[in-house]
């Protein structure tokens, strides 16, 4: 989707050229360097560069003069000036001459990244304007959204349609369907992709924690706030904020969120300075928000503000055709991470998986495959490696003791019967674990 962005670095100091060269190469740019303005201008005659980053003070022709000449040749060239502390006035002049921005040496890595991301966005916007005429949309970084079923293809089409805009999105789906993956895919395919995607799991935080997490806080705002801190909305500037489990937020937070969405500005907790932030909002929920609006537990105005576009992620039982592909994907994932040779899965096991309703959706399938790899023979996953009875009940256990026995056995196998590791994972001491092993007569296979 994106062509490589090229940068020309102009500086008379070789250590500066080298550092920037390495930095930009690692960032995936195409980079060239010039040691003075004259060389740079010669290079620009035969080659195009998307971004030019130049020192102001150089022997021979200085950066400002070079800037003027570049702008004469190409009005929309993106030129960024670098300056030492002493020449800030000159830098301001550079902005008047049409420089895209300026930075003071040495740079804060975050400032440099921000600056180059801004410039990259400018380049890709100019580029995407061209592309829009061709109407080609291909998605990047969606390799973990697996599925050829119509349901999944619809989700991918909706991601492609909505990614380029800045519209708010609500992602609806049962838990375990992969809503966060959809949010990531939208961000990764938007013009905001150069900036952060900041995730907040609203359901995990109390009202006051959520408030300071989202808005940040000033020193002394509450007991324990010894320093001031940036909130998630601030971090998401120019990027995307992902609010998971949006249905769980309190009425007070609903009002505050609405205000932020209307004004795109807010104050830190305990602060009195208004902070502006340009972010896109993506929310996810497994609840029926419309029904919550109808019964008065979720604000209608907030709902309409968030729900500009809605993407419904289908439950796994509605796209069982994707199960073989998903199984294959998770087998590869876990064999790789456990450093084992790639396993296969027998057709009967696949068939059993296809019949299972999967209330926990993809996450449940993923756990099942991980478990099967751990307990299996290392070559092939078979029916008996899956904790599913033909009746379609996930566990053939009823009592709490049975659940405990099955779980301990699973963990022991997972850690190769290393008692210390298993006890650590179970958060019990070794003696307790030995007693349980005796109680349930567990044996290493």
């Amino acid at each position, binding site marked *: 989707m994106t062509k490589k962005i090229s940068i020309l670095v102009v500086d008379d100091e070789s*250590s500066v050229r080298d550092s*920037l060269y390495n930095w930009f190469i690692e960032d995936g740019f195409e980079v060239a360097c010039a040691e003075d303005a004259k060389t740079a201008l010669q290079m620009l005659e035969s080659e195009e560069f998307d971004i030019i980053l130049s020192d102001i003070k150089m022997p021979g022709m200085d950066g400002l003069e070079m800037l003027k000449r570049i702008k004469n040749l190409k009005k929309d060239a993106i030129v960024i000036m670098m300056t030492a502390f002493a020449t800030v006035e000159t830098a301001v002049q550079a902005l008047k001459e049409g420089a895209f921005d300026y930075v003071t040496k040495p740079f804060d890595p975050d400032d440099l990244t921000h600056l180059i991301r801004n410039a990259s966005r400018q380049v890709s916007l100019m580029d995407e304007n061209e592309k829009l005429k061709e109407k080609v949309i291909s998605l990047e970084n969606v*390799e973990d959204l697996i599925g050829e079923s119509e349901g999944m293809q619809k989700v991918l089409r909706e991601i492609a349609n909505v990614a380029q805009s800045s519209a708010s999105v609500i992602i609806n789906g049962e838990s375990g369907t992969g809503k966060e993956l959809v949010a990531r895919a939208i961000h*990764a395919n938007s013009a905001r992709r*150069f900036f952060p995607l900041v995730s907040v799991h609203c359901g995990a935080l109390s009202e006051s924690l959520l408030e300071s997490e989202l808005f940040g806080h000033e020193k002394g705002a509450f007991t*324990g706030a010894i320093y001031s801190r940036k909130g998630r909305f601030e971090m998401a500037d120019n990027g995307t904020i992902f609010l998971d489990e949006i249905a769980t937020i309190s009425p007070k937070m609903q009002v505050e969120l609405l205000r932020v969405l209307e004004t795109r500005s807010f104050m830190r907790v305990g602060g009195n300075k208004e902070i502006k932030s340009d972010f896109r909002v993506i929310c996810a929920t497994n609840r029926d928000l419309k029904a919550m609006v109808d019964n008065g537990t979720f604000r209608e105005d907030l709902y309409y503000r968030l729900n500009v576009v809605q993407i419904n992620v289908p439950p796994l039982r509605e796209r069982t055709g994707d199960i073989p592909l998903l199984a294959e994907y998770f087998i590869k994932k876990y064999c790789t*991470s*456990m450093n084992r040779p790639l396993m296969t899965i027998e057709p009967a096991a696949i068939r059993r998986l296809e019949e299972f309703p999967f209330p926990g959706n993809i996450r449940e399938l993923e756990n099942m495959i991980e478990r099967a790899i751990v307990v299996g023979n290392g070559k092939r996953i078979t029916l008996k490696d899956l904790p599913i009875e033909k009746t379609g009940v996930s566990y053939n256990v009823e009592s709490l003791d049975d659940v405990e026995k099955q779980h301990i056995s699973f963990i022991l196998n997972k850690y190769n019967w290393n008692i210390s590791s298993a006890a650590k994972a179970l958060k019990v001491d070794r003696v307790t674990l030995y007693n349980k092993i005796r109680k349930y007569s567990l044996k290493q296979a």
Partner: protein
Amino acid sequence: MKPDSITLISFGSFEKKLLPEIVDDIARVTGVPVLYKEGFIDVGEYFCPERKQYDGNRLLHEIESNFATGTGKTIALFNVDLFIPILTFIYGQAFLNGRCGIVSGYRLRNEKYGLTADDKVFTERLIKEIIHELGHTFGLKHCLNPVCVMRSSTYVEDIDQKSSAFCGTCREIGSF
């Protein structure tokens, strides 16, 4: 391509008690055997009085000349504030497609930013930064996937947003 081994070498006041956990995690994510040892150099020689920080370029070259070995990858671990001439600080750096890299825990601790100390968070950040620099030695560049370890992070909370694993695309590029 995957190397046949990874060596972590701790220098100066780097906390060695964290190493066993770090070693396990890095072996798991990369699938390469990981060794660790302690190295001895006078870190003070790399201190730059004007910047009151340590010279990341000279340290990286020191590791390349005296500690890196032929076939494996080496990451040197420090607990000092690193800089390179053009940047106010770095968490670490490595030779792209090279044999070694350096990482410092100095700016990865919560306390540095006035937040409550948290060993777990610190260790996670450290592991991610080590794997990130290893990724560069495997020839990987920065990745825009929000959870890929090769995403570039310029402040600590940014590190917290990504995982310690390589995304599918990076695995493919690095052919592992």
